[in-house]
């Protein structure tokens, strides 16, 4: 009986810690979002998202952050696309063509793990070296390349996790029907893991659009919406950074509003991904 009591007390104690931990986690979320919203309220106007900065925006005059919103969407969109064009073939190759224990596959997966852990500032520095090598100026293109490199390991790993789960039996069934590896890859494997693939893309997109260290040296900044790949592009993380760096409280409030906008965009992406996953899950074979 004593033993049971002790065990029950142990259970109670841990339960208490568990609930406390959960409260801490959810509480931090509340604190962060709350602080951002409260600080941004005075600056939340429609003009923030519909206008580009007019002269002296960073000194407190009118305008908005449309340049950064569009710039970020262009940059993260382009980078995610570029990354996707690399990730998908890599994941397909690793799971359909390569032998399970081939050294090449192991080395590649290992490299991806390493790349995953590389700090984003190192990507920024590396991107800068590449830019200097090719004589590129700070531009949308340079930013896209750098962020694509940043997103590559994130997207590839997430995709790999999902595609790996496709049962071998499914692939074998396809081969036995006479399909080539390529056809199997795209008509069976990819279709089966489509929801997971889309989630992977959206996770990488979320990371890419929110990162400042990789774009600070490479994408430049401008008050205009870029009309070509070779022009510098404003990005939301940098816009937040720069607005915070001014001495004007009105502009600092706008920094919080920009942070709210960025978080909203990422939230929309993440919600959108859940919906899409739901829809495309229909195509799966259970």
């Amino acid at each position: 009986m004593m033993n049971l009591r002790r065990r029950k007390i142990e259970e109670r104690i841990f339960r208490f810690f568990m609930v406390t931990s959960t409260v801490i986690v959810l509480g931090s979320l509340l604190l962060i979002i709350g602080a951002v919203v409260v600080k941004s309220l005075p600056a939340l106007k429609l003009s923030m998202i519909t206008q580009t900065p007019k002269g002296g925006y960073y000194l407190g005059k009118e305008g908005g952050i449309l340049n950064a919103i569009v710039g970020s969407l262009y940059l993260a969109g382009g980078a995610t696309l570029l990354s996707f064009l690399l990730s998908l073939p890599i994941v397909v190759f690793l799971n359909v063509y390569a032998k399970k224990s081939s050294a090449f596959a192991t080395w590649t997966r290992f490299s991806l793990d390493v790349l995953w852990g590389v700090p984003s500032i190192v990507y920024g520095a590396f991107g800068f070296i590449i830019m200097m090598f090719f004589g590129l100026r700070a531009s949308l293109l340079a930013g896209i390349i750098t962020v694509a490199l940043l997103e590559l390991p994130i997207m590839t790993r997430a995709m790999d996790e999902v595609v790996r789960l496709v049962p071998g039996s499914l692939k074998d069934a396809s081969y036995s029907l006479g399909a080539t590896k390529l056809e199997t890859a795209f008509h069976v494997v990819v279709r089966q893991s489509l929801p997971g693939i889309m989630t992977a893309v959206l996770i990488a997109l979320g990371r890419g659009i929110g990162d400042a260290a990789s774009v600070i040296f490479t994408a430049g900044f401008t008050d205009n919406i870029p009309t070509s790949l070779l022009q510098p592009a404003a990005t939301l993380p940098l816009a937040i950074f720069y607005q915070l760096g001014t001495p004007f409280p009105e502009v600092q409030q706008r920094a919080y509003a920009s942070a709210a906008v960025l978080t909203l965009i990422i939230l929309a992406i993440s919600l959108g991904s859940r919906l899409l996953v739901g829809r495309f899950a229909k195509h799966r074979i259970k």
Partner: protein
Amino acid sequence: MRKKGIKKFAGVLIISLIILIGLSFGQNGQKNLTGKISISGAWALYPMGVKWQEEFQKIYPGVRIDVQAGGAGKGIADVLAGMVDFGMVSRDVHPAERDKGALPFAVTKDGVVATISDKNPFLNDILKKGISKARFIDIWITSKTTTWGQVLGTNEKAAVHVFTRSDACGAAETWAAFFGKRQEDLGGIGVYGDPGLADAIRRDALGIGYNNINFAYDAKTLRPISGLAIVPIDLDGNGKIDDRERVYGTRDDITGAIARNVYPSPPARDLYLVSKGKPSNPAAAEFLRWMLTDGQKFVPETGYIPLSKEKLSEGLAKIK
């Protein structure tokens, strides 16, 4: 017959002269100047850069100017890497940078001031006595002064909380130059960015730091921003602040003091636009030329100090 010929000839000559004169006027106007200029760099120069960008684009609507901040370090790195036309730099250019092609043009002047919280318990004493350069050195360089008592010559044991800038920047270099040193010699907790440092001071009653004038004073009220007080520099080291040294009430007071050379340089300093060699972009060259001439009239209203005629003509000579 000859007379008519001469008349005709004279007439053609006069007409050609008029056309030539008219054409040369047109060249001077150049309202159709087009091009792109990109500038990045010091926060200290940013408000002035933006003002100049506005006014210049009014005159030459065909020119597109991008002004970004990001710090003096970014400005120098960008211009030497060929990424921008001009880097805004709020400190002196180092020899190693000149070797890489950096060509600085002084375009205006501002300064760095020492700051404390307006909730500092010894505020009145500090404002009366000021702090001398030697004492500042003991605070930031040698760390021999660690209590407010040592600063004020009393027995107060309260510690001095020293702050500096973590990012490589002009304000820190200039403040260190006041002591004959460099940014890396400054001690204290490193905070990122001018506003970051100002915030840290506002929140710490025992803190001491430094800021660009445009970040220490409110642009609208022209008084120190709320929460901040400016530390008067005891210039003659006599242990008190005389009328001559009391120049920190409003932004105009301090800029006036800098212009009269009452406030020393450093920590007042020239602000530079740096290009890699002579500016080859014609729009950029014209922009620079304009800044050193007509552009100077916008300097005082933006909170900066205009340069002397000699410095300006030196700069103009370098463009050619």
